[in-house]
């Protein structure tokens, strides 16, 4: 009986939960599978870590600050708010201690840039993934 309730409950969940779209990290297809912690990823997005563990340069792409994909990505994957990242970049840009990432204006442009730029990392919605880029979301 318990089992039956469980099955019904799961079926009910499946039925009523809208198909959720997650934000996932994508990298250039030639980048090997590195083990990256959440803080490693945060450090890459803060533009502090600028090399992959194999020594090759990282090229970070982000979507405009007020884009909902950027907001969701910051909150759910990085566990940060967009203004915090912007604050870190601004502090680096205007004190000479670092640089800003390359900004793109659409998901299509993000996917294109990440697939064409060696060392690239960025993010997209999981339903917009194709074979031109490599997802690394599973590591988190």
């Amino acid at each position, binding site marked *: 009986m318990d089992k039956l309730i469980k099955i019904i409950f799961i079926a009910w969940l499946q039925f009523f939960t809208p198909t959720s779209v997650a934000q996932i990290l994508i990298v250039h297809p030639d980048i090997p599978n590195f083990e990256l912690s959440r*803080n490693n990823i945060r450090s890459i997005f803060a533009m502090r870590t600028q090399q992959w563990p194999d020594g090759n340069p990282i090229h970070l792409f982000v979507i405009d600050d007020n884009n909902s994909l950027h907001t969701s990505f910051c909150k759910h994957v990085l566990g940060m708010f967009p203004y915090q990242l912007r604050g870190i970049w601004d502090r680096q840009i205007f004190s*000479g201690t670092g640089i800003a990432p*390359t900004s793109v204006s659409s998901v299509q442009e993000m996917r294109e840039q990440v697939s064409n730029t060696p060392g690239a990392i960025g993010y997209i919605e999981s339903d917009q993934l194709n074979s031109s880029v490599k997802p690394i979301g599973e590591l988190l």
Partner: protein
Amino acid sequence: MKKLISSYLLTFLSFSAFADTLLQDKMQIHGFASQGFIQTTDNNFFGDSENGSFDFTELGINASFQLSPKIRLASQLISRRAGEMYNGSLWLDYALADINLVQGDNFQLGAYLGRIKNPLGLYNDTRDVAHTRQGVFTPQTIYFDKVRNISMSSDGIQFYGDYQFENGTLLVQGGIGFPIPDKNIEIVYMGQDWEGSLDNNDLALIGRIMYEYNGGEWIFALSGASLELDFDATLSDSMIPLIGFNDGVLAIDYTIVSLQHNAEKWQFGKA
């Protein structure tokens, strides 16, 4: 009791430009411009603010160039007009070489050489850039405007490093450098603009240690500076009765404890 109520209008704009596509990876140019309006009920601050003052203009332009994978060059020029203290003349804010010495899986270590912004508190590094500070002015108890140049930058070497722990990141920056004195130092600490001069022959110690817990949800920082300036008095300086100065040393020690909490719509800071 001093009463300072200020109402303000502050507009700013910032821009980013990329030289051209070939250079795009290596070269970044950014700038900022802001114009303030200050009105106070008592006491003037940045111009004749009791009658409303526009004497607060900040302009800046900077460039960063990646010379090689390990070496980056960066410099910023600013013009700042603030009451009678600063007249808007061009000022070399920083000009440095950033050398990335070691990059590990969870850490990095590097050095800045040249004129470097002093890492004091949470805002000193970019306090002239309106959109990076939380208020119209930075709090004057920590970020004095009266003697700002001496705390802004120094000419020397600073090492930097960060280590990514499980629950946060430790960031350290510090080193030695010659402070950059101006006439305002004499006026503030020594009562007036003397004929003699303050020399920056002694190296200052500057440093900050900061921990960003959980991606910056909480930020803790301890920073400080310790410096000495030699005052070379002229004969006429020492002849002035009662308040006259002979040669001497002006020593400044400065420690700041900072705490910041970042929530979605709120940010709390305590220094």
